[in-house]
């Protein structure tokens, strides 16, 4: 089996920064990403085949910033493996890779995981209708493929991404009927002074809000999406006011005619790969999700396995860049490529910048503190597990029969057995068990992680039977 000095998984801001810093100090780095292009979700580059000469080849300043980072990584001789999934991580940091036709196992002397995050899935009646998108998915569609999700669009959920998505929609010529933010935003003025050191971010937010206002798009706070209507695809949406925990208030419903509905309740860390590697995680009630346990060197509970970026707790691209850089420094230092004083100076600079960014993050976390009330939106008929098409009622039945852990409900109802490996239904199921069974979310647990983390073509595997 081939051994590689440093394997970085994930080609978004965190992974790119880690690869660049480690490679800059002479470490041999292999950077693996399942997408056809580097950049991840944030620096999403348009696939080569979609690019047209001239106008609109790139969108936004983050795209050109990403281009520079990608060019650096290429120039430093990082071994880049695109279209490659990591489907398993075994003992001794053995990483199982597969493309469409080939598979390979590699021993990573140091392993940096930068798996990113995905949209927090929140089931509600009608959420499986065609035309209902997650915010991340819609952004991906617009940024990566220049495809508008619809012409009359309602954006709902919580967090700054809603504004960004609305910006792209308006930019692309869609009509945004409203943006519904679940948070009351009443904290905004109380927290304003803490945003002073982060004026650049605050300005960005202000710019997006201003743009909505100019386009005449209502920005409704303290509102949640209740239901998507339609049979073949979404034709309408019901929104209602919500309480401080984002639970809907009956009798405050408003209807909108739409042909697309974009829902985003922020992001949760993608923990499949850290869990496969055996890394410990803990439940963070403020975020309403699990985050991996890390040292200040970005190292997980498993020695020489590092986790950086949104995969280690969603904090955005600026934090991801610094964390990746710091992990790259640590790896270079441990390989004696970056010694004593130089390492200390560089690492403490990175930590200083992270500390500064943490201040902004704390404001955002407080402003958009996740409300568990949205998990009460689903009714019995609502699909909980999209892959296996299991309704909420079946999972509830299992809880009534005595199931107290997500793995038990999985065994009894097939929830979480499908293609997505429980990414979509896991968090909602844990909340359902906790609420219906009177236990805690941590007692309800998480699905046991098992390879393959992603589906792998059999042709690729059949040649890897050593």
């Amino acid at each position: 089996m081939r051994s590689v000095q440093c394997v970085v998984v994930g080609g978004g801001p965190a992974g790119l920064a880690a690869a660049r810093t480690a490679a800059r100090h002479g470490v041999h780095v292999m950077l693996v990403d399942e997408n056809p292009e580097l950049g991840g979700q944030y620096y999403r580059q348009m696939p080569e085949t979609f690019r047209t000469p001239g106008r609109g080849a790139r969108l936004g300043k983050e795209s050109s910033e990403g281009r520079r980072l990608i060019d650096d990584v290429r120039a430093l001789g990082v071994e880049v493996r695109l279209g490659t999934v990591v489907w398993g991580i075994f003992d001794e940091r053995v990483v199982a890779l597969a493309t469409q036709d080939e598979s390979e196992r590699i021993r990573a002397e140091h392993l940096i995981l930068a798996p990113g995050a995905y949209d927090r899935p929140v089931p509600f009646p009608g959420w499986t209708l065609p035309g209902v998108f997650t915010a991340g998915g819609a952004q991906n569609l617009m940024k990566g493929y220049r495809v508008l999700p619809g012409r009359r669009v309602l954006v709902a959920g919580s967090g700054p991404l809603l504004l960004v998505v609305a910006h792209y929609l308006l930019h692309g010529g869609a009509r945004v009927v409203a943006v519904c933010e679940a948070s009351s935003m009443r904290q905004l003025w109380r927290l304003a002074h803490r945003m002073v050191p982060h004026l650049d971010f605050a300005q960005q937010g202000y710019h997006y809000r201003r743009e909505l206002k100019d386009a005449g798009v209502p920005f409704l706070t303290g509102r949640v999406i209740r239901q998507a209507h339609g049979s073949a695809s979404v034709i309408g949406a019901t929104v209602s006011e919500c309480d401080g925990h984002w639970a809907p208030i009956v009798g405050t419903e408003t209807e909108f005619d739409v042909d697309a509905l974009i829902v985003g309740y922020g992001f949760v860390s993608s923990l499949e790969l850290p869990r496969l590697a055996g890394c410990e995680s803990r439940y963070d009630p403020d975020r309403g999700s699990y985050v991996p346990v890390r040292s200040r060197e970005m190292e997980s509970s498993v020695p020489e396995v590092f986790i950086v970026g949104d995969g280690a707790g969603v904090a955005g691209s600026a934090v991801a860049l610094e964390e990746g850089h710091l992990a790259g420094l640590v790896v270079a230092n441990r390989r004696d490529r970056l010694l004593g004083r130089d390492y200390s100076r560089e690492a403490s600079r990175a930590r200083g910048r992270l500390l500064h960014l943490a201040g902004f993050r704390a404001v955002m976390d407080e402003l958009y503190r996740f409300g568990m009330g949205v998990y009460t939106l689903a009714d019995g008929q609502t699909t909980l597990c999209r892959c296996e098409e299991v309704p909420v009622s079946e999972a509830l039945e299992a809880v009534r029969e005595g199931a107290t852990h997500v793995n038990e409900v999985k065994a009894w109802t097939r929830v979480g057995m499908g293609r997505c490996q429980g990414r979509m239904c896991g968090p909602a199921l844990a909340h359902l068990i906790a609420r219906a069974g009177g236990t805690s979310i941590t007692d309800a647990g998480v699905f046991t992680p098992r390879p393959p983390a992603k589906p792998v073509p059999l042709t690729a595997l059949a040649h890897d039977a050593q």
Partner: protein
Amino acid sequence: MASTADVIVIGGGVNGVSIAHALAQRRVKVVLVEKGALASGASGRSSALVRMHYTNEWDARLAWASFPIFRHWSELMGGPSVFTHTGFVNVVAPAYAANLRRNVEMLRGIGVNTTALTASELAALQPGAYVGDVGAAAYEPDSGYADPAATVDGFRRRAEELGARIMPWTVVTRIDRREGRGRGVETSAGRIDAGAVVVAAGAWSARLAREMGLDLRMRPKAIDTVAVTRPAELREPHMVFIDNVLGNYFRPEAGGLTLVGVPCQEWDIDPDTLGTGLPPHAAGRGAELLTHRIPAMERATLARGYRAFDGYSQDRHAVLGRVDGIDGLYVATAFSGSGFKIAPAVGICMAELITEGCSKTVDIEPFNLRRFSRGQAIESPYPYATRPDYLDPHEVSSTGA
């Protein structure tokens, strides 16, 4: 305060709940204790093939007596059906074709609906199968597979309706052996006194028995299974295959999946700490085995995989019956990766043995533990190539066989 029962069953897998059900049906006051959730051991991760093809008559009779219960589950047990009908084939290499035909004769003698096919007949029956290395196939048109968790839950529900007490999350700390009688167990929920104790604890049975000074001649072994998503052109479910040429099996699963058993030779694992993920090489091996038999599976994708375990006896057949020298102690264990399909009959036979002194539905005497000390291990008159997952690589290399 000790509670009492006529019979205590230890183990909430498919055989444990089946025994509890059969006892409750005979108006026996039965308590089942399970240290975790029901079906959390081998049963829950079983591929639950329902077929009759065996190379020995005793196993075949147990499978044949169990079959009507799977097939007519709703009528007999209440609740939704647990059985999926697909048809079944057992394929062997040319060297074993004559043995296969003898076994088919034996099975037909019992009453099983089965015929022997040539390789070309198999190719006609299952388009897309590679038959170049197949000598013959035994075909069972009525067979298929079951939903293991639903089966366990169905037995549990019916047993409770009939008055059985099912206690999950109850750990047995000690089986009483005083005066040579197994007359009670200490559990995490208190002591339970009973006239008889049945150990049906799967991979955990060996340890429980050892604590009583009893050697069940079994070892726990890991079992690897991968699930693949079939390509669009193979969307229609295929038959259940046991591939004796390559030494594995595969069967369709709901949602366009196919489950593939991957031979695994990891012995003496600890069922309490064994990881449930695939080892790194298993997925590749499974892909190789499946694409050899069904070449179009090259376009399938690996969807998931998992590791289970079971207790394997010295001759890779179950250990059933009364234990000599310990009055009131019974075992139904060491099913050696093949215990699901015979569980309904095992339940009935064990209940007959306990209540009437001998089993009548099927004679389970050949499965008694004493066969090992008497040199009467179960052997097939017309065997096939030894399945690779029955071999312990260390044993093989140390004996030089």
